[in-house]
């Protein structure tokens, strides 16, 4: 049963992602991507990571994608004036498809050659308690570092925005 669910979810994720990648309208792309993320979250759950699955939905689908949407709307990137109106021509697609295809082929070949290949994924469940315990014991330092990272990101984002304002002010002044 879980196997079937996995394949279905996998198909949904790939198709949704493919749709997202090929949309001209970024809003559409984001919506497709949210779909894909939901599918992924379910796969996570299936693989015994409920907490990660929850965060996938909350952070990715909920926060990051919404941020994208905000930005798209703020910059008024409606399809009418999308830079990709004509869409990439075959000249752009061709080498990329070539790379993609080759990479895929290489990966598949390598998987084929993997001696321990075909190991089945067991049913397994990592409770949020275990998770929290690992996170705040073994990875306490990393958590601190990452939190600093987030702080710096916030400061950085603020700075980029602020520097911009100052420049505009200067522009107004002159």
């Amino acid at each position, binding site marked *: 049963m879980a196997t079937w669910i996995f394949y279905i979810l996998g198909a949904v994720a790939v198709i949704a992602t493919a749709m997202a990648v090929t949309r001209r309208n970024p809003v559409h792309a984001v919506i497709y991507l949210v779909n894909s993320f939901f599918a992924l979250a379910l796969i996570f759950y299936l693989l015994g990571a409920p907490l990660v699955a929850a965060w996938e939905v909350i952070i990715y689908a909920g926060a990051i994608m919404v941020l994208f949407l905000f930005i798209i709307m703020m910059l008024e990137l409606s399809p009418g004036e999308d830079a990709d109106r004509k869409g990439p021509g075959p000249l752009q697609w061709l*080498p*990329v498809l070539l*790379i993609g295809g*080759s*990479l895929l082929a*290489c*990966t598949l*070949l*390598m998987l084929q*050659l993997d001696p321990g290949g075909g190991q089945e994924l067991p049913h397994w469940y990592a409770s949020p308690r275990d998770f929290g315990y690992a996170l705040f014991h073994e990875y306490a330092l990393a958590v601190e570092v990452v939190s600093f990272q987030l702080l710096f990101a916030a400061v950085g984002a603020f700075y980029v925005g602020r520097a911009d304002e100052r420049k505009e002010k200067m522009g107004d002044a002159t």
Partner: protein
Amino acid sequence: MDSRLLLLLIILPLTGGVLNACFGCRLPRQMRALLAISSVLASFVLTLICWPLAADGGTQVTLFTWLKSSGLQADIGLFFDPLAASMTLMVTGVASLIHIYAAGYMEYEEDQARFFALLNLFVFAMLCILLADNLLLLFLGWEGVGFCSYGLIGFWYQKKENALAGRKAFIVTRIGDLFFTIALLWLFALLGTVNIAEINLRATELDPLLITPLVLLLLGGACGKSAQLPLMTWLPDAMAGPTPVSALIHAATMVTAGVYLLCRLFPLVSLSSVGMATIACIGAATALYAASCALEQREIKRVLAYSTMSQIGYMFMAVGVGSVAAAINHLLVHAFFKALLFMGAGALIHLAGGENDIFKMGGLKQKNPFLFWLFLIGILCLAGAPLTGGFFSKDAILLTAFSRGDGLSAILWGVGVFTAGLTSFYSFRLLYLVFFGDYRGDKSAHHLSPLLIWTLPLLALLGLFGGLINLPHFYGGSEMLSHWLGVAPALELPLPTEIGLLALMTLFFVAGWLPAHLFYRKYQPEAETPWRRFLLQGWRFDALYERVILQPYRFVANFCWIGGDKALIDGVIEGIGRTLLHWGGYFRQLATGQVSFYLQGFAWGLLLMLGWLLLKAVT
């Protein structure tokens, strides 16, 4: 007597020169001249005091070691022997007189300090040449006089020609110095020493085949300094300097340094018969060449310059035929009367209001009869009037040449006698044009300082009686100079031959005087003919050198710069740069600035890595 006194001989003029150079502008005017005169005069007195030191093979004294390296030892060391002593006495003596004269001549000059500093330094350098006990110190003096001469010829530097004349003198003499340098290097390589006495002593050790080139190189050096063919073009131009300078440097002292060098190294030089013959031939050729040029010169100092060149030719001839005594005798006497003539000429130029051209002078006998008589003595000496100093010394040279008896000597003798006739002619031409007739110039006389006249009589006396120094036995003399220098006395000729030669010399003197008397006693303007211009311009040697040496030199220089440095070397290097830049242009296009293009590169790289891993896994 303390031999270290000798060191003072060179130190005194040096001190005078340095003091004048460094502090001259702060000293009161009279002090500058006084300082210069007293230092040279003190040197002269010192030479007299030290005279006994020269006897018995001379005295050697060292101040300190100048250059010392493996095998090389060059001291600031002096060697005072009869030859050096006689020259030193003459140089300090004449220099003292000329310094005094210069104090009068340069009375109103602004830049007196520079003048006297250079003059003193010149005396120092000249004394270095004379007294040096090694070739390097001699070379120091040799170049030193060259520099002082450069500075003094171009003393009035604001006229471009003067400075150019100085430069020409320096560079032309330096071409001669090149040969001297090579000779020095070679001697050191062969003998391992630069000490003159040792070189003379060990000259016989040398391979006879090598001596001739060595002598010719030394001759080249001597030719440069003494303005002999073919390095003579600088001397006439050097007359651009102040007259005392011409008198001191370009008549009495520096130009005779070449003769002195050959005499100094005579034991070496005399070993090569080819070399000696070449010396004699160069001397004779120059004597004739210069005399012919002097025939048509218009400037008083240029006449004298060519005559100097001619007389030094005689001295070379004397060395070449093997008579050091005759050469030195003529050198000394010539120094006296030529200094007299130049200083007289300086006074005459003042008298003619700064006019140089003898065709614009005339009638100066009335203006200053005393000067006329003094000048006459000089002219008589120069022309070789019988019984004057110049007659005896020149006669001795020709006699030696004659007595050698081989074909070459006979030709040399013939040239010498003929040149004597020419000398007589141009000397009297000068005399008549300057002193007789009416004054033809348009300038008024300058004030004549008494110093300009009263230094001359002494020189006149010395010139007139200079023959007594080395009077041959034939005239009842005792050949003092020959004995003093310790060289073989002149050969005795049979009495009729002697008398015949004497008569011939007198004849040629008269043969030179008579035409001059006829043509120039009354002044007539001369038409300019190509022949005259040819002689006036010194056989156009300047133009020849310009075309043969200077123009190619400039051409090569320009070629090296524009063709070599700019085009070839820089061209190659900048070419490499440009090629790189060109190819860089292609690579530059890879940097499109497009993010996706770069990322695509990443992806290809990823593919490569994966493929490689795969390949490794497969095999």
